[in-house]
């Protein structure tokens, strides 16, 4: 099998100053010693990658901006050798702790894209979900980023929050559009059992209402010139997240940090979620799967159909040596008939309805035992 080097890198920073109510990612309260030890560990992990460079790098969390300015500098210095010439280098940040100094540091070390956790413009909703920033904080950070030359900004927004009305969400969307940010990610609240909401047995909102939120976002952002290029992601033309596209294109990506998921050379892995073990033991995986061709074909489809453009037929053929129509003949026929899948000369992609019911579409693809190519 060919040994292609992954072109993308994800680093998970597991620290937060506050834990949000909905979060079930690997995260712990920020603690200086722990963060220092974590950075030491990152250094070891990165040293194994010496000589490689990445076309996209993404520092996520947790809250990367929760690191102290010295720690942030250490981290960015560790990463510096791995930055490719045309690298898209994204860091997640929270408005309340992303100071001008930290922003300057980021710019200095090559970060050229910031993903900002705005979530909502209503302070009552921000309080409810445990966020510690205000709308003014978000506004300030955006101005500062632009002042220091980072225009490639993405903002996260959430819908389906308890008590959130369509009017609330409309205000958030209006504000986001008004900021003229090139990229917006909108996530539906999911009640995860392992989150504070989950433990309090907060109920998910009604499916119809969730549909209304989704539709509202689609309508307003489309009118404002955004492309709904992936289920949860919108961008102005040409401003897709290149890093996330590696996921949707089912390319390889390297993962570092507790709970981070990676995929390299037909192998998918998740690094241990246990921070203590991550810091004290060697590289431990919660999951380490050698992918069969069957796995890869399905996963390729599962990720690819989340994109509005869908799957490029040629890419599937090149990758697996067999056409997607041959492998998933039955599932494709069934969903074309339902009006959920559309074929063009070059792509297969979900219709608007097909996107809304993508899980049903994908389940049909699961039920097919693909022909081995």
């Amino acid at each position: 099998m060919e040994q292609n080097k992954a072109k993308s890198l994800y680093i998970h920073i597991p620290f937060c100053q506050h834990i949000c109510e909905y979060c079930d990612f690997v995260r712990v309260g920020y603690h200086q010693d722990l963060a220092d030890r974590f950075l030491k560990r990152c250094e070891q992990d990165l040293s194994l990658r010496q000589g490689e460079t990445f076309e996209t790098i993404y520092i996520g969390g947790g809250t990367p901006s929760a690191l102290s300015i010295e720690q942030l500098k250490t981290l960015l210095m560790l990463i510096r050798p791995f930055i490719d010439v045309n690298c898209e280098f994204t860091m997640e940040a929270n408005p309340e702790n992303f100071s001008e100094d930290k922003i300057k540091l980021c710019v200095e070390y090559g970060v050229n894209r910031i993903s900002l956790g705005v979530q909502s413009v209503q302070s009552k909703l921000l309080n409810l979900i445990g966020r510690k920033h205000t709308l003014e904080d978000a506004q300030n950070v955006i101005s500062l980023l632009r002042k220091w030359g980072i225009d490639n900004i993405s903002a996260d927004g959430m819908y389906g929050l308890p008590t959130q009305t369509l009017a609330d969400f409309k205000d958030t969307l209006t504000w986001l559009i008004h900021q003229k940010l090139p990229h917006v990610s909108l996530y539906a609240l999911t009640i995860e059992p392992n989150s504070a909401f989950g433990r309090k047995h907060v109920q998910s909102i009604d499916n119809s209402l969730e549909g209304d939120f989704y539709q509202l976002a689609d309508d307003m952002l489309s009118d404002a010139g955004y492309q709904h290029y992936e289920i949860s992601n919108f961008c102005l033309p040409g401003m897709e997240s290149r890093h996330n596209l590696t996921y949707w294109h089912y390319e390889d990506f390297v993962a570092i940090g507790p709970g981070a998921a990676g995929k390299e050379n037909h192998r998918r892995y998740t690094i241990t979620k246990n921070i203590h073990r991550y810091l004290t033991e060697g590289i431990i995986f919660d999951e380490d799967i050698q992918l069969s061709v069957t796995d890869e074909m399905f996963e390729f489809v599962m990720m690819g159909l989340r994109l509005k453009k869908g799957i490029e037929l040629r890419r599937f053929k090149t990758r697996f040596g067999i056409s997607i129509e041959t492998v998933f003949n039955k599932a494709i026929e069934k969903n074309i008939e339902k009006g959920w899948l559309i074929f063009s000369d070059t792509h297969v992609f979900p219709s608007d309805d097909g996107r809304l019911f993508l899980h049903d579409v994908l389940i049909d693809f699961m039920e097919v035992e693909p022909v081995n190519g």
Partner: protein
Amino acid sequence: MNQKYIRNFSIIAHIDHGKSTLADRILEMTKTVDNREMMEQMLDTLDLERERGITIKLNAVQLKYMANDGNEYTFHLIDTPGHVDFTYEVSRSLAACEGAVLVVDASQGIEAQTLANVYLALDNNLEIIPVINKVDLPAADPLRVIEEIENVIGLEAVNAPQISAKTGLNVEQVLEAIVARVPAPQGDPDAPLKALVFDSIYDSYRGVIAYVRIKEGSVKIGDKIRFMATNAYYEIVECGIRTPKEVKRSSLSCGEVGWIAASIKSVKDVHVGDTITFAQNGAIEPLPGYRTLNSMVFCGLYPIESNRYNDLRDALEKLQLNDASLKYEAETSQALGFGFRCGFLGLLHMDVVQERLEREYNLSLIATAPSVVYHAFMTDGSMISVDNPSLLPDVQKIHHMEEPFVKATIMVPTEYVGPVMELCQKKRGIYKEMIAVDAGRMHLHYLLPLGEIVYDFFDRLKSATRGYASYDYELDGYYESKLVKMDILLNSEVVDALSTIVHRDFAYGRGKAITEKMRKLIPRQQFEIPIQAAINNKIIARSDIKALRKNVLAKCYGGDITRKKKLLEKQKEGKKRMKQVGSVEVPQEAFMAVLSMDED
């Protein structure tokens, strides 16, 4: 073998009162099973029985006991199934005995089920030895229980052994009582053979193995035999006893309990209760008490994946080899496709069959709601038996209808009489009488429509009485009822598999309950689905399942492919348990919802 030293007995007990534990101790104490090969509760062989703590198939073991009188006795312990569905089988295995050990829990006292079996034992002229079990538990009140046995059954129980089957305390007293009080088998060893069949199993190599009690004469390998009721002729290939391991012998003599194998290919030839005699110069009169079994409850069984119809047929065929009381015939449903109408002795029997089909044959099934057999008297004077509600003829052609009723005996602590009467009322029960058993307990007698109790009566009875009530029933006969067919429409289409027969006066409440319950059970789909209940094409109730707007996750999982995939796998599993009915996907449970009562 000298008949004088044979003792044949059963153990009668309510579920959980310790029948199997006592059997285990007896096996241990008679050194029949050594400790190493001792599996807890030896007599229950099917996995399912073990799990549910119930005994479905009977079994019989031979034990040797050195009694205090210095003689060695041969005991045959015959196990009985412990559920109301199997009353006839119980009566036949009791007919193979001369005595019965009645085990009563020292804190619970006698339950209705036990009482029913005691009456069966008395009908068969068995000597009954009461035993008080679990006397080592703190809640034990042996004196109260002794008094109860004397009052309720009229048995002398002052000297009843007070035992703990668990620890083995005083179990020897039980063995001595069996020697002293259970009569030795009578029967003439020189008369023509009369062997009572009380159970059978199917062995794929040797065919049907019949469990028999030799009542008269004896039988040996090579004997040509006749089953008197089915008039089937065979030649004995093997015979023997169980210890519980199978032990081959050349013959079985008068008074003994064992098994015979005769290359019998079909279980249909071997009916429980039948008499085996010699093919030539055999007995003239069969043993008394034989009857053919009728199915009490019917339901449709359909494979969720229609291409597994043949697998279902094969599985039913195999199950029937071992279970002659299972009846089935092919049927077709517009909604469910090809399947089988199956007849069962009762609800438990139905559950067990369904579970075995799913577990042992790896089938995913839809079972329609259980139905009893209704009698439709037509205007032209003819009568039609209906075991599938959707096949009830046009209402204009029916003059009147009858349904089966049972005589139910419910035993309940006095403080729960109110809730029980209320429950029976809801189930269209007809009150007969109430008898005080003692200061704290009542016997309630009701006539109840079988169709009303097949589904959840026992569960409801237990929850209405915090588990204190017990009940038993026997078929009483058919009585006229104002019955109508209620259809259920999904997305405006009648689903034949969801039709039920209900009493006209209860139809509105039922219709409302059913549509509401189904609304909760059927997951939302991409379109709105009305659920309607109709009688004679007239809609009497309606609920709507709102349309599903979206089914895609807009959650920030980034590169976490595993999580996305797991979610899909879960949804896929959910779909597997559903049947496509027209344009609607319906989960298994929804087919049972048609039996919902008003308050749930």
